[in-house]
């Protein structure tokens, strides 16, 4: 196990390095100047400011300098406002991760419950309800949901804060908006798998042995049904990151989404690099966790012996 994790870890570092290199050269090749107010600057001033950020040097020197800083944990300063990239990221980090994690967990839990119930009570109202929820989740874009939730629940009904950040209540609506697609996917997968698993021979055997219904469902059925659900969790986690960009702006959540999109369009090199690294680490870790979970749930996948 430890060896496997070590190996995975070193692969993650290599992946990250490639991402950093690719993004660095890509973003520097984009057209346009990174200076915010170049319109009002004389050419000498522009050159001077570029020099302050070391942008006047040849690209490969800049690249090695950046890597050097990175090794020491220095992500540089944002060109747009001269503040430290690490500080900017840390500001948005907790809010983004909180609504993301809460949305994901909420989605998984509700999705699991709905999926299992739907499979156990096939063709009842519970099944229809689960199917209905999953249909809404797959077919209504999360930004439409987010805007509708914010306006109707937040403004018209006034049950929860329409947006902004501050108390726990503020996190509920954004998390719900993010959780919908997760609920949809998970409940669909779990239901399909459960239906299949329930018809397997070993289920009949278990029943014949007199094991309680609950124990059968949890121990045998759910566990097997979880395997495919875990596979989709990686993409789902990545999807939540994308979804959070819009959800954050609709709910005025002080997260990273806006920082990210802004930094690319305004060519704030250091900021783009910083947020890319941040998101990449998140995605890579999510994939890694999913892999580990996979091994835990399905003993057939022997992590310790896994080889390429």
């Amino acid at each position: 196990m430890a060896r496997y994790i070590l190996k995975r870890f070193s692969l993650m570092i290599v992946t990250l390095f490639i991402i950093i290199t690719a993004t660095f050269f890509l973003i520097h090749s984009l057209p346009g100047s990174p200076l915010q107010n170049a319109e009002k600057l004389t050419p000498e001033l522009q050159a001077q400011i570029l020099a302050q950020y070391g942008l006047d040097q040849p690209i490969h020197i800049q690249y090695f300098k950046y890597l050097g800083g990175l090794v020491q944990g220095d992500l540089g300063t944002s060109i747009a406002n001269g503040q430290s990239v690490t500080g900017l990221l840390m500001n948005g980090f907790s809010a983004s991760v909180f609504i993301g994690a809460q949305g994901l967990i909420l989605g998984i839990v509700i999705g699991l419950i709905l999926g299992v119930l739907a499979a156990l009570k096939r063709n009842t109202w519970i099944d229809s309800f689960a199917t209905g929820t999953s249909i809404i989740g797959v077919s209504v874009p999360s930004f439409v949901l987010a805007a509708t939730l914010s306006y109707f629940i937040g403004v018209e009904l006034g049950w929860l804060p329409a947006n902004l950040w501050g108390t726990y209540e503020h996190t509920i609506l954004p998390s719900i908006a993010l959780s919908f697609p997760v609920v949809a996917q998970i409940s669909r997968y779990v239901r399909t798998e459960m239906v299949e698993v329930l018809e397997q021979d070993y289920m009949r055997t278990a029943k014949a042995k007199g094991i309680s219904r609950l124990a059968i469902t949890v121990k045998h059925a759910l566990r097997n049904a979880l395997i495919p659900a875990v596979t989709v969790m990686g993409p789902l986690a990545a999807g939540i990151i994308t979804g959070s960009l819009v959800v954050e702006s609709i709910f005025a959540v002080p997260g990273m989404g806006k920082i990210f999109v802004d930094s690319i369009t305004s060519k704030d090199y250091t900021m783009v690099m910083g947020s890319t690294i941040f998101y990449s680490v998140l995605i890579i870790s999510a994939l890694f966790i999913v892999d580990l979970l996979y091994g835990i749930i399905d003993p057939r996948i022997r992590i310790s012996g896994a080889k390429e």
Partner: protein
Amino acid sequence: MSTEKTYTPELFEPIGQLEKRAEQLNRKQVGVWKDAWLRFRQNKGALIGVALLLVIGLLAIFGPLMNDHNWETQNLAIKNQSANIDGHYMGTDHFGRDLWQRVWYGAKISLEIAFLAVFLDVVIGVTIGGISGYFGGRIDMFIQRFIEVIYSIPNLIIIIMLLMWMEPGILAIAIAIALTGWVPMSRIVRAQILKLRSQEYVLAARTLGASHKRILLKHLIPNVMGPIIIAVTFSIPSAIFFEAFLSFIGLGIRPPEASLGLLISEGNQILQLFPHVLLWPALVLSVLMLAFNLVGDGLRDALDPRMKK
């Protein structure tokens, strides 16, 4: 078992020459595709999905012929009308343009982008997945690492950068979506090929001297068609979604053009004042998504041998 029925010898008679009949199939012989079709036909949801797709497809083509307006002419005097007057079946938008026209025009553009993106997905995904799965070893490992990298970069950064390079239009957006969208496709193809290539008939073909190209194209790819088709039906709605998302954050199709995502984004800005501008495109988009998902589910049930019972 406990039925009290008496069996008498008269009820039984010999069937005679066994060997001859043993080879004969009583059931009508059905090919894979025919079999799938039979299965698909019985799936009510899938049929509803097909029907919905047909309706939307026809409306996207013929809807614009159904009133006397067009999708781009502005008339500020009648902006944001929600009522159906003067042939504005869905009312008008913030420029007084006919929403009926814009919704169907937008649906057409959204579908075009999605189909184009998925076509590119298939081309790239099948090629890379096929090569990776068939040759295995070093090549496979290299490709898998590459995919891991692609997968770990937030896809938005690639897309935004591409859209800053290219003129944002149908092609650019389709390419942007396909640029990261081919990964799942390639994974599916690779997994299938890995499974198939070790089977006897491939070994047989190889022993008989068939080239790599022939084995891939004649033996493996046709057998992977099922999963590919399923993946395609699920890729189309996600491409439509992604286009909508890009439009929503202002990186997709540029106004005054229209796509479902752009229309939704425009409607969202005035949701509190004129909800109908959001309602119609959101409804069409949702129905479209639903239809593709139903059809995809139906196809999976019909084509995926694992599900055969």
